[in-house]
């Protein structure tokens, strides 16, 4: 009976939703802390269950694919916030475009060069280039580029948590801490996790962060396929 259940694709879809819901509850209980995003709790819980039951990823994904299917439509949906941000950024578009393209370009280039020199595995280097892009886009992109999509997701989430942790103190120490700078930098370097950290800092930070995250993802999705 248990064995039948563990090989039922729908059970794994159910478990994934349950793990995510639990992650949301934990996130709320901890006062929406940026350091434990629900997606991280969800991934860890599902992975632990798979490891303890000895069920393979291939079996899991038969159920997981029901949820994975929605990734396409939600990436298309990013056009809705992007359209709203285009209005907002009209005022300072040149400064914002430069900060986003050069800032994200720098962090990705440094990461890719370090990975190439230090590890020297092409698939890892390619995957590293998608680290500054919000997770749904990173996963889609790394599949397309010949990277490892599971690793892309891990890089993006870890970058997000590190960024949320490091960026506000770093910018305070260097006195580059105007609300717009902190928000934009969190969005460029720490995408969704950074944006939830920005929300804790203030509404202006949050607005700049959400805008920067969406613009960075679009820019990289368009440029990386031609560069890699």
């Amino acid at each position, binding site marked *: 009976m248990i064995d039948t259940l563990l090989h039922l694709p729908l059970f794994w879809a159910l478990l994934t939703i349950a793990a995510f819901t639990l992650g949301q509850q934990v996130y709320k209980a901890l006062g929406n802390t940026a350091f434990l995003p629900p997606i991280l709790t969800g991934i860890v819980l599902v992975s632990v269950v798979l490891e303890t039951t000895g069920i393979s990823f291939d079996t899991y994904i038969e159920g997981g694919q029901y949820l994975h299917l929605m990734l396409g439509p939600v990436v298309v949906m990013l056009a809705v916030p992007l359209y709203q941000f285009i209005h907002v950024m009209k005022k300072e578009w040149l400064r914002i475009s430069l900060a986003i393209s050069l800032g994200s370009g720098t962090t990705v280039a440094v990461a890719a060069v370090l990975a190439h020199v230090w590890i020297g595995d092409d698939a890892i280097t390619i995957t*590293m280039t998608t680290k500054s892009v919000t997770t749904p886009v990173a996963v889609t992109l790394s599949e397309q580029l010949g990277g*490892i999509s599971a690793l892309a997701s891990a890089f993006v989430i870890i970058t997000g948590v*590190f960024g949320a942790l490091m960026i506000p103190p770093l910018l305070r120490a260097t006195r580059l801490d105007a609300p717009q700078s902190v928000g934009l930098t969190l969005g460029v370097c720490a995408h969704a996790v950074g944006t939830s950290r920005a929300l804790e800092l203030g509404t202006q930070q949050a607005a700049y962060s959400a805008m920067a995250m969406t613009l960075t993802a679009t820019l990289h999705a368009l440029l990386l396929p031609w560069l890699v």
Partner: protein
Amino acid sequence: MTGLLILLFFLVAGTLLQLEYTLPVPGSIIGMLLLLMFLMLRGRTPEPLAQISRTLSPLLPLFIIPVSVGIITQKSLLADNGVALLVILAISLIPGALVCAAIMQMGGKPRD
């Protein structure tokens, strides 16, 4: 449901363009750009689209969990390179963040 229909329409259009012209950009990204162009031409967001966006946005992370769980198939890679990867991810943030914030504050701190 109209909102979901609009999303799927642009996803199919983007995927079709990608396959037909063997573009290196993912079909969903092309679909997103087509939808963006549509919104810019139209001048406002149709209500069904705003509605589906409000419904689906909070669920976005859920749809990424399945592929992310694939990390359990990468255990040997992580055992070999895990520490190096963490260090690279942390170090590479610093120059990027400084460049980004410096450009934002070039010529003095913004006022509001």
